[in-house]
């Protein structure tokens, strides 16, 4: 009886109005930025620049799609940047080692690409198991692996860079540099991952369960949802996304170093939050996340093209944006 009046909603009208505005917020922000970019620099609105921005967005965007699931489920993964770096290093070493064994550079590259995805899934599985069966906070688990992943890469690279053999690099480079119908290959993959993410989130039982767990884990558990399995799958899904992003990223430079993927976790989480997903979980959108990711790389692109704010402050600007967005979301839940 002590809980009755509190059951009633405090104000059901307000969130609806805000909700409508809120969904459009990131899109409006992106449009305003594009207008600003066009006005500031004639090169901004060119086809080449747009494709350049989208290609750069692809890595973070693909990771952000996976991150979106994790955040909606009420979790977090701070390790994605380090994970990408370790996967990149491992894949390069694997390709270099396998090329002579398999006798076919092409096979080595293909096997390496598969390995990237498998490694991502395995790392995600480890996260998921530690978080669910080990009952450790996701923040702590992934903070730990953030350090572990990067330290192992630094160890493998001896503090320097791990570089892909030239022959392999030539075979692999189209994965990053090739076009299809004038659109770079990574952008196509980004689009496919985002579409798949949207469908999984909104049109499968798994996606519904992810939202249910993030909204209220207890209720989901009582409602016969296998909370542990769903959470583990969610971290694996993110791991797979990191794997895909990495296999697109490796041919760009053909090497991995201790600075590979630095601050990617900030950008991926920022993309999700800027896209309107609340860090507490429960609800969120893939479309918003995609828009958020593009918005962040447009910001950095504008910084590159103009001299209003130093490029060195890129991460600072992203930091301000995420805090500002969180400030506007405050009180929504």
């Amino acid at each position, binding site marked *: *009886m*002590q*809980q*009755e*009046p*509190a*059951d*009633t*909603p*405090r*104000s*059901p*009208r307000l969130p609806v109005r805000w909700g409508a505005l809120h969904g459009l917020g990131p899109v409006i922000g992106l449009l305003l930025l594009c207008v600003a970019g066009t006005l500031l620099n004639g090169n901004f609105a060119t086809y080449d620049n747009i494709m350049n921005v989208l290609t750069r967005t692809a890595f973070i965007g693909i990771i952000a799609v996976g991150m979106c699931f994790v955040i909606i489920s009420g979790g977090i993964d701070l390790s994605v940047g380090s994970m990408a770096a370790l996967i990149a290093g491992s894949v390069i070493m694997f390709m270099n080692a396998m090329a002579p064994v398999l006798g076919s550079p092409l096979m080595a590259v293909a096997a390496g690409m598969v390995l990237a995805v498998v490694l991502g899934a395995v790392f995600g599985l480890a996260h998921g198991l530690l978080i669910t069966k080990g009952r450790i906070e996701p923040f702590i688990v992934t903070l730990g692996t953030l350090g572990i992943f990067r330290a192992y890469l630094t160890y493998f690279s001896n503090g320097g860079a791990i570089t892909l053999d030239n022959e392999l690099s030539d075979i692999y480079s189209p994965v990053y540099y090739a076009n299809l119908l004038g659109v770079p290959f990574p952008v196509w993959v980004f689009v496919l991952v985002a579409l798949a993410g949207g*469908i999984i989130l*909104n*049109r*499968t*039982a798994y*996606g*519904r*369960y992810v*939202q*249910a767990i993030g*909204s*209220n884990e*207890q*209720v*989901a*558990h*009582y*409602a*016969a*949802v*296998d909370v542990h399995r769903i959470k583990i799958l969610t971290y694996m899904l993110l791991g797979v996304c990191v794997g895909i992003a990495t296999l697109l990223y490796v041919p760009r430079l053909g090497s991995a170093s201790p600075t590979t993927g630095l601050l990617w976790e900030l950008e991926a989480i920022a993309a999700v939050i800027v896209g309107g997903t609340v860090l507490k979980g*429960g*609800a969120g959108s893939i479309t918003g996340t995609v828009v958020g990711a593009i918005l962040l790389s447009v910001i950095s692109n504008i910084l590159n093209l103009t001299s209003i704010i130093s490029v060195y402050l890129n991460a600072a600007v992203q930091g301000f944006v995420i805090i500002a967005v969180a400030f506007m979301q405050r009180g929504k*839940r």
Partner: protein
Amino acid sequence: MSVAIEFREAVKEFGPVRVLHGVSLALQPGRIYGLLGENGAGKSTLMKILAGYEALTEGDLLVDGTSRRFSGSRQAEDLGIVLIHQEFNLAEDLTIAQNIFLGHELKRGFFLDDALMRREARKALAQVGLQIDPDTRVRQLIVAEKQLVEIARALARNARLLIMDEPTATLTPGETERLFELMASLKALGTTIIYISHKLDEVERTTDEVIVMRDGKLVAREPTPALTRHEMANLMVGRELADLFPPKLAAPQAVPVLRVTGLTVPGWATEASFEVRPGEILGFAGLVGAGRTELFEGLLGIRECSAGKVELKGREITLRNPRDAARLGLTYLSEDRKGKGLHVNFGLRQNLTLMALERYARPWLKPKAERDALQQAVADYGIRTGSLEVNAAALSGGNQQKLALAKVLHPEPAVVVLDEPTRGVDIGAKREIYALIQQLALRGLAVIVISSELMELIGLCHRVAVMRAGRLLCTLQDAQLTEEELIAHATGTR
């Protein structure tokens, strides 16, 4: 030493829902008032306003003739008004003395004056008759002692008006007696006490006046001797109790669909055995903490069980989690609607289909099919909502509860366990829920109802199992079902 209280046309709204419809009420100092009302009648809200936890939407609250608007419980406490919560507001890891002075620490200069606080705490404990070292950690106390600490804390802050919300719900009869003696001595000192309870016999014994609320309004205020218990109950419900329940059906004779033997949930339930037949409504009675909810959480695999055998539809089964249970045809409606029952930030459709989502995913979810199911459920369960696209939070308590019922029945279980199915719903919704429960039984479901409202169990069930301190003591047949009988078994006075 005393305080006079007056509410004038008190109105409270939570969003669009009005829970107090202009309550006017004056209380004289130094009396014990019994405050009665069904769940959701608004008595808790009224008391929270008095104690500063909620603010009035409209109207006035006068304390000693001065209009007051408390912005927090602390301001009310400064005037001597203290609410003792049903779930205590004690910091378990602090000592009794620390708790008593929490937020009001006595200091000497910059430093805490522990010696003085200890002395004062000991004095307050003596006043409530608790012989215990004030340095004891609250965690180590039993429930009755915690309650006395709460009262001692109120006294240490010079409480002149004490609000007690169901203070005896977790007490043994002996402890209850001691509480009543304490209340009488506080009254003699001029303290006003507002006593909220469902136990009408206690209200009859201890109070000077009875105030009855219903649906956010004051419906009666009488000197206690002027009312019989039956009259009190009728005033609370607003009609003859008999009208509330559908006529009972004959007890079914079929083979039990669920048979539980010797189920033990460590710390909560010991060797509980019961069975339920298709078409039967089996009640579970007991005091708060008797282990009823925990027994069923153990059965569903939410809590660890150390022993016991469960047979469902003639097959022995092991349930590791609610998912197993739902697959095999056993679902559970939690007593904690917001915390465990419904996703209040989810749409109605998503809530309804969550437990049977596989049916809608092949492999893609079919929103159209889900919407049809929602439409059907809204009609079947009488869920009143303006739109089908709102969140569950937008529904009133009663309609949320009907949605929660629809949700646990959506997987089409053979056995359904309803834990406090009418908690926090108004009287009209209660009646509808009772009718629904009976329809379920009529359709051949085995229904288990856990309830703290004895009238509900008596009015609805074919048989009632009574639990006390984790043991299932006996199962009473329809003919033996009376309030006295149930209380006697639940409290161990028989």
